[in-house]
């Protein structure tokens, strides 16, 4: 697991870089045309974006493509970003929308050679554990994706995107209490779905 990032990704980096440390200056520098600042922003955030997308779609190659697409959209939308929310929160929203757009797109022809499930690139990880985790994760992922829209976004943003309840509440423009109620409801539904699948 040495090369596997855990969520929230920023937990590991939080000690070194506070979430909003220098974020405003970074944004100002990007708006001023500083390419190095833009690259720094990518460095800071792309892993988390990729991870959240990877959890959403369970396909790392696809997640990488969606991550790239997310940033392309982010550059275009940067002038409209007012900086009131965290940069990653804003990016996660774009990533989630990108994922939804991908899911809603007409199905493209997929090669039979391509694996459907998560295929960790870490060859050194114990294969049994990886497979077990992988199977459990996939069932959970499918269940999460079957949740209603609002519950699905809340769960994925909080657990897979690493956003705090307050940040999810800001995105959804509702109270934190409402988010917690959503989470509770989502857990109930997930449990029911997982149990149903086991039976």
């Amino acid at each position: 697991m040495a090369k596997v990032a855990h969520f929230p990704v920023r937990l590991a980096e939080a000690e070194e870089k506070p979430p909003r440390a220098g974020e405003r200056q970074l944004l100002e520098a990007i708006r001023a045309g500083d390419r190095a600042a833009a690259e720094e922003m990518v460095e800071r955030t792309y892993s988390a974006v990729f991870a959240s997308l990877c959890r959403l779609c369970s396909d790392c190659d696809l997640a990488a493509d969606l991550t790239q697409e997310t940033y392309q959209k982010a550059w275009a939308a940067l002038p409209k970003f007012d900086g009131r929310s965290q940069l990653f929160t804003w990016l996660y929203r774009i990533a989630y929308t990108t994922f939804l757009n991908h899911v809603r797109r007409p199905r493209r022809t997929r090669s039979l050679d391509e694996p459907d499930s998560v295929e960790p690139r870490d060859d050194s990880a114990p294969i049994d554990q990886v497979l077990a985790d992988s199977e459990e994760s996939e069932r959970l992922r499918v269940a999460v994706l079957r949740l209603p829209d609002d519950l699905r976004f809340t769960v994925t943003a909080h657990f897979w995107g690493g956003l705090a309840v307050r940040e999810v509440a800001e995105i959804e423009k509702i109270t934190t209490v409402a988010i917690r109620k959503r989470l509770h409801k989502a857990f109930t539904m997930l449990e029911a779905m997982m149990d149903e699948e086991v039976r």
Partner: protein
Amino acid sequence: MTQKKKAELQRKLSIAPVPRPPDDLAGRIKADIPEFLRTDHDRKRFSSSVAFSLRVAASILLVITSAFLGIRLLSSPDGRLITESAAPASAAFEMKDEQAAEVTVMIEESAKKEADASTLRDVSTPPAPAPALPRQLAVRERLALPPPTPAPPAAPPARAEMAEPESSVAAYRPRVVPPVAAPPPPAAAAPQLAADLDKASADAPAEARRSAIGGASLREVAVTPKSAGILNTVHAGLSYEAPRALFDVSIDPDEFDRLRKMVESKTTPEPQSVNVEALVNHFAGAGLASRQDVALEVEASLAPIPDSPAMLRVTIDTASLPEEPAGSRPPAATDATLEIEIRDTAVAGYSIVGSGELKAGERILLKGASVTRLIELTVKPGLERSREVARVTLRYRSVRTGREVVLSRSVLARDVAGPWTAATRRHRLATLGAMWGESLQGTASSGEEVARKAANLSSEEPEDARARELAAAATASSRLRGAGPTGSAR
């Protein structure tokens, strides 16, 4: 859901391992960073776009405000913009060409000033240079009229005499004397405007032109060119003679003068030439300044001569003019209809003084106009005093508000039974005038009785010139004819 299961689910969701991103992903993303990242341009562009929109909005507001102020400034002091001259030309009285109306207002104002000036100055004196009229210039520029040409010599002045001041305010009746032959000079300037006005005048049906204000006809007035060249030989503004009839009631203002001169010269008027309606309207005169657009006055009483039918008077007064009218009067109402319903259950018979019908209409009612219709009523005996004898309804559309107005008055039996001496002075004068006219026709009671009652009226208010005039004329006619024939042919 138990806390344990919930915690387990949270754990699964939270700590699920996620593979690291591909090594080249950061490079791919960085390669997509656009070359021009500066968002200042976009923000400035957005700001400038907003600013542009605001400027456009401000410009529109400015234009609207300017147009409003312009119209207000170009309007005459009483706020009228529509003139009577524009109305009949369009036949349906729709101000489709507001600019033309404005120009007409100014042309008429110019004609009025010129007429005033011309009556005061010596004919042999060449006209003094007129002061510049910026409003007219502005309109000329707006309409892209050609520049004024030098004034032709000896252009005939416009004639628009004012009515002689009357001693009685209550009996004031504006009178516009038609100008003497004033052929328009050859239009040397402003050909487009002149052509347009010519066309409008020619296009309007003759009937529409005549009936626009109760028979008033369109007439061209030659405007003396301004020596300063502001308005050169402009085709006349359209002016009107005094209306000769309203609601099919003759209101010829010259009728009384004609008859008076005849009786004073001891000439007996031809009975069929006597216009009783015109006499009624002459003596009824104009009402006091009305705050309404149109006022309806209905009054009934016994006849001034005993054993004659009761008299019902219906008078319509339009709003008075703020200044003495000369060449133009603004409209007060359009599409006016007057309907007098006589209840046959209460009335044994009726007779309209003069001619005409109980229902009549006018397409346009100008300000400063008055018309009186008299009807003789013979009510059935033993009628309840509260019984309705007649109902008078006047409908019109106000030019000021654009709304349709309905004025309705009910005439009861007790109104008709009221003594003549208790009636208003206007009513008494109008009915006496009718009696005098009918005596001249030989269809009514003696002129002596009329003269006596007119003398009584005059003595009540010595300042009332009309009562004095009527007393004098009735006395003269009674002497001329001796005892007039009695009885009525109707």
